[in-house]
């Protein structure tokens, strides 16, 4: 069980924020912290200790698994709790990551510092056709803060190459709204397929979302279509032929019945006429 409280106060142009988390029993806990701008962030951990309740224990901080230099301190038991607090200067993308406060060798709270993540990402590829155009969209949720701008990248091997509309204005179009961005690619070729990244630009860093594009030729859906058309033609022909063979059989029987019917005709009509009256 862990509780957390959030206090925010700012002084001048540097805002101090304190993010606190409390750990009760010997467990670990993860907090997600969303940051937009460079900030001096104070992280505070409080631990209620274990059965022993030693008067002093060592506590230290870790960033991305590596121990932070000069962070090892001796923590005194105060009011039945141990407390670790440190101010970190978060200025750029490198400063973001996972920060953990560790008490002794048991208790640990992890703070994951990141820019707002793009939530709704389409996990299945978008399919489009050679010569056609396609619209790839990325959206930042309403609950998250809006990015300053958007960038688009195309994956090139393991690298990302930014797409600049000015370089190829006939092929690419980028339409940006506050929380939505659309990349339009015209005149698709098979080489245009692959992973595309949309980057939401915040002061602190750019968060990425990715969408996969698949470009296929028109022959792909044509094959199942022709298969189905052939199936339909075969079935219709079979049904009509079956019917023809059935009716030929009945025609010979029917013509015999007809001659008998005509003989009964006049008598039949008189009886029906009576019924009409």
């Amino acid at each position, binding site marked *: 069980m862990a509780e957390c409280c959030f206090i925010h106060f700012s002084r001048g142009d540097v805002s101090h924020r304190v993010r606190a988390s409390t750990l009760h029993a010997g467990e670990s806990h993860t907090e997600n912290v969303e940051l937009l701008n460079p900030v001096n962030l104070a992280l505070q951990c409080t631990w209620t200790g274990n059965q022993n309740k030693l008067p002093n224990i060592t506590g230290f901080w870790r960033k991305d698994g590596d121990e932070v230099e000069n962070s090892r301190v001796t923590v005194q038991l105060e009011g039945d709790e141990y407390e670790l607090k440190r101010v970190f200067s978060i200025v750029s993308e490198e400063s973001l990551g996972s920060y953990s406060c560790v008490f002794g060798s048991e208790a640990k709270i992890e703070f994951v510092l990141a820019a707002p993540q793009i939530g709704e990402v389409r996990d299945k590829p978008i399919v489009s*056709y050679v010569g056609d155009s396609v*619209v790839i*969209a990325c959206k930042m949720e309403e609950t998250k803060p809006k990015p300053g701008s958007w960038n688009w990248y195309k994956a090139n091997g393991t690298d990302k190459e930014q797409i600049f509309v000015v370089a190829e204005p006939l092929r690419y179009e980028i339409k940006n709204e506050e929380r939505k961005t659309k990349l339009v690619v015209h005149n698709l070729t098979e080489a245009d397929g692959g992973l595309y990244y949309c980057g939401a630009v915040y002061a602190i860093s750019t968060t990425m979302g990715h969408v996969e594009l698949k470009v296929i030729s028109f022959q792909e859906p044509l094959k199942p279509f022709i298969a*189905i058309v052939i199936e339909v033609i075969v079935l219709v022909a079979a049904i009509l032929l079956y*019917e023809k063979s059935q009716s030929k059989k009945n025609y010979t029987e029917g013509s015999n019945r007809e001659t008998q019917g005509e003989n*009964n005709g006049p008598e039949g009509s008189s009886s029906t006429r009576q019924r009409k009256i």
Partner: protein
Amino acid sequence: MAATKRGHAPPDGGWGWAVVFGAFISIGFSYAFPKSLTIYFKEIQEYFTVSYSEIAWLSSVMLASMYAGGPVSSILVNRYGSRPVVMVGGLMVSAGMVLASFGRTIMHLYLCVGVIGGLGLALNLQPALTIIGTYFQVKRPMANGIAMAGSPVILFTLAPLNQFLFDSFGWRGSFLILGGIVLNCCVAGALMRPVNNNTRPKPKTEPPERNGAAAEEAAAASDTGEQDESESQGCLHKFIDVSLFKHRGFLIYLIGNVVMFFGFFAPVVFMAAYAKHQGIDEYSAAFLLSIFALVDMFMRPATGFIGNSKWVRPRIQYFFSFAVSFNGVCHLLCPLLPGYVGLVVYAVIFGLAFGMVCALLFEVLMDLVGAKRFSSAVGLVTIIECGPVLLGPPLSGALVDIFGEYKYMYYACGVFMLVPGIFFFIMHYFNYKKLDEEKRQNVPVDMRTCEEAVQLKMSQDSNTAHDTDG
């Protein structure tokens, strides 16, 4: 009575069940196809950069064409029979979808999918319903129930299929392949063999009125074809039987249905939205619709079976009135049920009610007007129902927007179904009384203006013929 009217007894079996299967496919595509296309809307909306309401128009245009095409379909069926019309309908929808897959503007889609596709579906629906009436009399409610079950079954298969096609081929390729899939309506049409074809060769085209001897033969012979022709030429209304508007049963049906359709489809359309409004997650909300469709699927043939039983069949109009009222009560009580469990119970009961009404919807019309006039009747009914069907969901949506909650919409829908239900009960009580009176007076009840005039004329002609011979 059926024997005298038609000249032969409907087979009530044999090839009839193959015809029911064909009707199952045609009816299924007609109702399920427009609903299943909604999966593609989001991507098409992005592709053409249009608003959500503009893309929703696609469904409306398709539905409107389908209903407005009803009379056209009836006229064609009256003239050419069911089979060619269904096959042409299947080809039309297929062509519409294939053309749409090459579309460059949203207008192109409205025309191809909406107008051509919708019309093609109309040419599937009416003939399928009509032909059941020619093949079945005793087991007709059962046959109707099974055929109407096509709608939920095909929707159930089309929904995941469409999702798969979309993921594999995008919307263009999917439209192309759907154009192929819908071509199976032509197979369904091939099954719809005209009911006399294998007992007698095609009758001669000479109209019996001009030839006295031939008129007698027509009266005696068991041939629907010649009688149909003489009637259609004897009546002023050659194409569609407008004298239906003087038919008591037809008018009751029409008035009740027009009111009913305002509240019929809206609860289905808004079910998932209502669930989400109550705080239920998207998947559970979608699951409600699946429960509803599953119950609906089994209820339709079950209703057909019940409708066929000897206790219900003679008074089947009361069964229909009960089904409609049941729907109304269901919607009035729905807002009172709490939580997800309450919604599941509602989905099940609504599925039962919806299935009952759908299974009986056309059976009762056949029961009222008879199989011969059914084709014209259903054409007239669908074009008049076009209004409430199209206006119902948007009006309900407006109710939700005005009041901010769904319960008033459900109350309104409940009232729109309960009132016609009670109306049906009362009116059919009087109608049955009158029918029984007329039966006692020995006047065949569903012979009205057209048939009586023609019979009279035929007997007059044969009289004159005999005079000249003698």
